[in-house]
């Protein structure tokens, strides 16, 4: 079928290396460490945390090695060539011609996310050494954190959908365990359950989607590439091959996207993410802001061709992904305004930023969206760790901005500095990293013709600047309040504080020393906390230069290293699996250069003489005028919010204070936001009840009417018959016989009585003894 293509193809030998070939080791290291912590952790001098930190450091070194060798591989290849991923598989399961493997699929996207996950995990574990010192379940905490990293890294290197699901579910489990880390507090365990069930709702889509795609694609992938329909490279090529039927790929893409909605906190399943802040702050920082919640975005980016074809991205009209992303940006950003808990502001901010990533992917801006995963991880992890630093050292374990914070910039200069840098990065201010990713998303969304969503993105940028200004103002400016001012109020009613107090009862040794600290007033945290903050802030400042479009092509390294080239390739080019040297073949027809980007038929037409692994995407050229406009919008958000904050919180201006109670429209909006658009009510009171309630009612009715009726009816009938039998037969005939039998039975009964010892184990022994005799009889009879 592809014979001609092979003849005209040029062969390129790509460099590879040990780390690239053995990227599968990266998730194995923390997985082994998890078992070490579980079995030996409590006996170790550092209670198992040393295994966790060491394994994350090892994973980071391996991921760094893999990234370096991938960059070598890309740099050594000719311009525009398709860089084949480094794929390895071992058979995991096979029977009757059906099989799936376990292995690695390493390309630019993989190494970028591997690096981020390993890096943030390492820093967060170091931070946790101090933050959770003396916690009752210290060892378990590190075990869960390490297992999470193993799951996430496994999902990222996954060669096929089954392996991806494995990692995905491990992450879900660890998320549940870690949110409920202080489960003695009812609110925490409820939050853990809510997170688990909400994401499970989406996970149904993951299983369904994988099944739909497997049954549609398996034949094609087996014939053309020699891989199963679960394989990621198989699915990618299949989606662009023209083979898939419209219904199959659309249903598959929608089902997979529902999983992404659940995991990545997109509207309408975002409600679990803010509640997940009940977990310890390092958990919020690692799982619920920078790594786990981007799993959904990663899934879409991973098998992007499926979504590209299934959702008709760049098809001229709005699609499911871009709409969901757009809605998420705005509703989450609005919710951030009414939060008084600093972590909840950051949580809604995370939801909103995930909306940007989704919107970018939905509008064909693959690279900016992936780059936003990369930069967002650094600055959002930094913001969360900063919030943890404040509560740890200054506000006496409280996260309430209005009650217990304020004026902290004088006491915590390092936390304040890193916070400001990360906030500027989050708002997308030039030249911080967020500018190069978020602005690119907005720009490319507009460039690809989704104008409405470009304005949604700009509105989101305005809101982001405004709510972050409010949070920064409340936390670091003004006068210290509550716990930060040294007041001790032990009768705390707010959740996060109560959670901390609660676990303090269970032996948070550091807590006592903390009371001493707090009475000295707020102060800067120790180096185990500040060093990770400084490292992350440095990256929040500088990581954008990996793909700094305004400075010309030389700075577009991330694009060069990560974005797969949309080339028509010989099927062996990507099906090729080898231990030594990777290989790519490119079709000899050199694609025509057009506006700096090569045009290939991938994504728009059915490729002839080969397969495509990635669709052809456009990149918006950079214009300072557009950047200046979004900077002005951010500045406007910043100034307006600052003005309102000063009037409201510092001057207590009568015009502003209590405005929501006086103005009906504003009051309605405020009430809607405080009640989170009533989505929780809808889910818990209406949907869950409307499903669970009728079922229990129906079961009760069935039990009362049908079963009891049958039983009662049978009873009455039996009674009638029994009466007749009693009068006519029993009294005359049977009694005589029975009395005789009775005495026999009594004898037998007293003989057998010791058997009825009431001991379950003895019953079990009798059961197995009888079964053994039965089996013996069976064997003898059959031979």
């Amino acid at each position, binding site marked *: 079928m592809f014979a001609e293509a092979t003849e005209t193809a040029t062969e390129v030998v790509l460099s590879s290396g040990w780390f690239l070939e053995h990227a599968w080791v990266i998730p194995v290291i923390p997985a082994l460490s998890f078992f070490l912590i579980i079995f030996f952790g409590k006996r170790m001098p550092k209670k198992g945390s040393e295994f966790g930190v060491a394994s994350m450091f090892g994973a980071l070194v391996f991921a760094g090695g893999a990234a370096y060798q991938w960059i070598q591989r890309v740099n050594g290849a000719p311009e525009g060539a398709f860089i084949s991923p480094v794929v390895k598989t071992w058979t995991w399961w096979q*029977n*009757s011609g*059906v099989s799936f493997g376990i292995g690695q699929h390493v390309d630019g996207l993989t190494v970028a996310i591997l690096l981020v996950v390993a890096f943030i995990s390492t820093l967060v574990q170091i931070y946790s050494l101090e933050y959770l010192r003396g916690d009752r379940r210290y060892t378990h905490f590190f075990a869960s954190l390490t297992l999470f990293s193993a799951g996430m890294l496994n999902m990222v290197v996954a060669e096929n959908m089954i392996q991806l699901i494995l990692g995905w579910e491990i992450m879900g489990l660890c998320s549940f365990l870690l949110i409920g880390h202080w489960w003695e507090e009812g609110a925490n365990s409820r939050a853990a359950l809510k997170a688990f069930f909400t994401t499970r709702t989406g996970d149904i889509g993951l299983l369904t989607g994988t099944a739909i795609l497997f049954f549609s694609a398996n034949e094609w992938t087996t014939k053309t590439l020699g891989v199963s329909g679960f394989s990621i490279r198989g699915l990618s090529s299949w989606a662009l091959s023209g083979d898939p039927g419209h219904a199959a790929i659309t249903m598959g893409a929608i089902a997979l996207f529902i999983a992404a909605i659940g995991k990545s906190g997109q509207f309408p399943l975002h409600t679990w993410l803010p509640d997940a802040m009940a977990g310890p702050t390092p958990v919020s920082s690692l799982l619920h802001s920078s790594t786990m919640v981007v799993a959904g975005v990663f899934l879409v980016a991973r098998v992007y061709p499926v979504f590209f074809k299934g959702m008709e991205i760049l098809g001229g009209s709005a699609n499911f992904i871009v709409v969901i992303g757009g809605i998420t940006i705005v509703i989450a950003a609005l919710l951030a305004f009414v939060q008084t808990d600093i972590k909840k502001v950051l949580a809604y901010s995370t939801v909103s930023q995930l909306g940007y990533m989704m919107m970018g992917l939905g509008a064909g801006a693959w690279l900016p969206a992936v780059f936003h995963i990369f930069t967002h991880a650094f600055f959002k992890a930094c913001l969360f760790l900063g919030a943890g630093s404040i509560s740890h050292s200054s506000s006496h374990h409280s996260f309430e901005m209005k009650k217990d914070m304020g004026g902290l910039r004088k006491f915590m200069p390092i936390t304040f500095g890193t916070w400001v840098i990360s906030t500027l990065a989050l708002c997308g201010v030039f030249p911080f990293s967020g500018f190069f990713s978020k602005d690119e998303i907005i720009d490319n969304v507009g460039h690809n013709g989704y104008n409405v969503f470009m304005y949604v993105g700009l509105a989101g940028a305005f809101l982001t600047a405004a709510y972050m200004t409010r949070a920064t103002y409340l936390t670091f400016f003004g006068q210290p309040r509550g716990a930060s001012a040294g007041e001790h109020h032990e009768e705390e009613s707010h959740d996060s504080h109560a959670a901390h107090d609660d676990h303090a009862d269970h032996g948070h040794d550091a807590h006592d020393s903390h009371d001493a600290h707090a009475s000295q007033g707020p102060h800067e945290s120790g180096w185990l906390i500040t060093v990770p903050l400084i490292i992350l802030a440095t990256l929040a400042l500088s990581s954008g230069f990996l793909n700094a479009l305004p400075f010309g092509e030389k700075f577009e390294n991330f694009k060069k290293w990560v974005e797969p080239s949309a080339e028509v390739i010989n099927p062996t080019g990507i099906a090729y699996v080898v231990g030594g040297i990777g290989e790519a073949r490119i079709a000899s027809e050199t694609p025509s250069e057009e506006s700096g980007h090569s045009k290939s038929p991938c994504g728009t037409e059915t490729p002839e003489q080969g397969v495509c692994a990635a669709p052809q995407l456009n990149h918006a050229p950079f214009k300072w005028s557009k950047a200046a406009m979004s900077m002005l919008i951010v500045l406007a958000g910043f100034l307006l919010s600052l003005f309102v904050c000063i009037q409201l919180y510092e001057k207590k201006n009568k015009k502003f204070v209590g405005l929501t109670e006086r103005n009906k429209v504003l009051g309605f909006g405020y009430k809607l936001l405080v009640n989170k658009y009533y989505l929780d009510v809808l889910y818990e009171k209406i949907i869950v009840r409307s499903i669970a309630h009728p079922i229990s009612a129906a079961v009760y009715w069935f039990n009362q009417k049908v079963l009891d009726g049958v039983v009662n009816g049978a009873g009455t009938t039996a009674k009638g018959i029994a009466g007749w039998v009693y009068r006519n037969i029993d009294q005359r005939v049977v009694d005589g016989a029975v009395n005789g039998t009775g005495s026999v039975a009594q004898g037998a009964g007293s003989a057998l*009585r010791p*058997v*009825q*010892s*009431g*001991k*379950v*184990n003895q019953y*079990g*022994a009798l059961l*197995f003894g009888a079964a053994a005799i039965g089996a013996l009889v069976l064997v003898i009879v059959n031979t």
Partner: protein
Amino acid sequence: MFVNQFLILAAVLFCIGVYGVIARKNAVLVLMSIELILNSVNINLLAFSMRNGSLDGHTFALYIIAIAAAEVGVGLAMVLLMYRNRRSIDLDELSEMKG
């Protein structure tokens, strides 16, 4: 194929399970032993399914896993109630059924 090894493994697991059911006093450990027995059966099913090259054994094994999950759910609920009522999950103390 190496069906023998699978069968030996299954037999060993089965014996450990039976020993647990008979000798253990702790209700949770008895439940775990029952799981071992069920899984040794699964291994047998899979081993023969592999030898015969059919998917039937896998299907049965999946059913058994699902049913085992339900069984453990019921069992653990009973253990929980037992604990609430008597502050102990020692099976020796549960001898009201003594004849």
